[in-house]
């Protein structure tokens, strides 16, 4: 929707303007229907029912033949109106307004008034998103690390004031250092949670600034926050004490900036019975800890790894087997616990069908989580030795 009041004569009239718009959009591969009218509601209605131009002062005739659903009213109202025989907008215009409002609510009258221009509805552009960027040009090129950090602190103060004014916190910050010889160095840091505390952010930049080659000197600095998140002001207690949560967030930020935020993880519970999918590894910077709903059922191992086949297994459950080049003898076995694959996911690891899990205590000490895939050999007449190859270890209990 665009406000074109006072503009059409520049394009040779409303008709020419509309044709021009249509031709340009068609060149871009878009087929559109457009309408020009004196009010926003009328243009909206006409654009959805054939398009065209309603000349000034003839709104009622222009939109009169259109169905009532064009008026931006909900489906129920339209249906109720059609049940009493009111189908077109022209039918509505002729009726007395008070009974109409009483029966169908003020919304219908409001939409009608907006379409006819009795109620104002300005076309306003959305306000620009605030820009979080500050820069500083230096009279003399600088090269010392301390000078860069001092400049950065001044920039951070200004940026954080801006962030505070809009109640936002930075999630990602970029510092560009322009050198005298027109080479720019860029340092980007991520934050484990939205933040606008200049001192703590400056500490995270220290390592990046250390690695910058200043050459003949740096003459301009630019600091921007490409990614921000809402951060309402918090009530802080007496004294500028930094809470434990902040210290932990600082640790996650500094670790994440070095090894990558996708490697700083948290375990989150998931609703799946498949062992591999019973928990999620979520980046700690973008998730909150979730309490584990107490789980009843068979015990689960403390460590889980991709299935490793065992060899020389004998019997069900195996009385003895070899795994990781060690020989194990079963002392006690608990099971089986049958887990069937989730058919709505095509997981290559689970193509072998359902699994029977056993908790096996070995004479040697380790308590292992073994499973067998009975379906892989069910239909085939294989010798017992081949069937014994279906045992895998997937976890280890405490």
């Amino acid at each position, binding site marked *: 929707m665009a406000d074109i009041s006072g503009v059409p004569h520049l394009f040779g009239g409303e008709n020419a303007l509309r044709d021009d718009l249509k031709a340009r959009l068609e060149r871009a591969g878009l087929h559109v229907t457009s309408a020009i009218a004196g009010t926003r509601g009328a243009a909206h209605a006409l654009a959805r029912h054939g398009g065209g131009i309603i000349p000034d002062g003839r709104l009622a005739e222009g939109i009169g033949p259109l169905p009532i659903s064009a008026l931006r009213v909900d489906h129920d109202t339209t249906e109720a109106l059609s049940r009493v025989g009111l189908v077109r907008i022209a039918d509505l215009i002729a009726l007395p307004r008070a009974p109409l409002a009483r029966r169908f609510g003020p919304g219908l009258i409001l939409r009608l008034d907006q379409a006819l221009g009795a109620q104002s509805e300005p076309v306003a552009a959305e306000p620009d998103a605030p820009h979080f960027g500050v820069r500083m040009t230096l009279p003399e090129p600088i090269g010392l690390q301390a000078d860069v950090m001092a400049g950065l602190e001044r920039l951070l103060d200004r940026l954080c004031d801006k962030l505070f004014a809009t109640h936002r916190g930075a999630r990602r910050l970029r510092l560009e250092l322009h050198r005298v010889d027109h080479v720019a160095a860029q340092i980007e840091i991520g934050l484990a949670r939205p933040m606008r505390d200049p001192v703590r952010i400056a500490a995270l930049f220290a390592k990046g600034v250390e690695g910058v080659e200043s050459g003949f000197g740096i003459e301009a600095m630019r600091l921007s926050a490409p990614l921000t998140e809402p951060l309402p002001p918090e009530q802080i207690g007496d004294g500028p004490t930094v809470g434990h949560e902040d210290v932990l967030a600082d640790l996650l930020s500094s*670790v994440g900036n070095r090894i990558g935020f996708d*490697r700083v*993880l948290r375990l989150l*519970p998931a609703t799946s019975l498949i062992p591999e999918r019973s928990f999620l590894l979520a980046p700690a910077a973008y998730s909150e800890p979730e309490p584990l709903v*107490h789980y009843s059922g068979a015990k689960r191992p403390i460590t889980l790894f991709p299935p490793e086949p065992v060899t020389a297994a004998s019997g069900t459950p195996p009385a003895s087997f070899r795994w990781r080049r060690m020989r194990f003898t079963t002392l006690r076995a608990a099971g089986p616990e049958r887990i069937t694959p989730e058919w709505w996911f095509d997981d290559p690891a689970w193509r072998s069908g359902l699994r029977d899990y056993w908790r096996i205590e070995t004479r040697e000490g380790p*308590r292992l989580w073994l499973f067998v895939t009975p379906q892989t050999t069910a239909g085939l007449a294989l010798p017992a030795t081949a069937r014994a190859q279906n045992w895998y270890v997937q976890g280890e209990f*405490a």
Partner: protein
Amino acid sequence: MRPEPPPSDPFELRPHRVHEAEGRGRRSFALFQALRHPGPLVWITPAHSPELPMLRGLPKGVGERLHLLRPSGETDLLWCVEEALRAVPVGLVIAEPEKPLSLTAGRRFQLAAEAGRTTGLLLIREGAGSNATETRWHCAPQASSSPDSTLHHWTLSKNKMGTSGFWTLNWNGASSAVDLVSEARQRHEPAETPR
């Protein structure tokens, strides 16, 4: 330096120091210690390590506090351990280095743990520890005779500030309490002479 009186609880890790555990049961030992340390937990494993802690199998209350760091190289791993040890609110840092630790790295960890007032536990491979460690535990699961018990055999093989010993105990994997099966241990200190 005179040895301190032995603590009443033999499995209490001396706070603000870095300890080591080896053997098959070292992860059980780490979880047992995680239960005894309140506050956030940091578990650092190499990125290519296939073994992950399974959330449903962890003792109650550990999973929510756990932060898993998976750095891709040994240098990054050591750096993460040091950084985590220096952070004050962290309750326990558990790390699984792959290579034997040098004395320098071990000393740095001790200094970081003292600075950050954090306790660390390194899960090392057999014989890959550093001399700077405060205590070294050898942990092995043991086959038990009754179906309801999970026996562990924990040996304290190095102790800078006390005596060593070994315990066979029954830990159910859920609480911070253990059930000592036998008090028997080798005696390293001289016997009290009757006066």
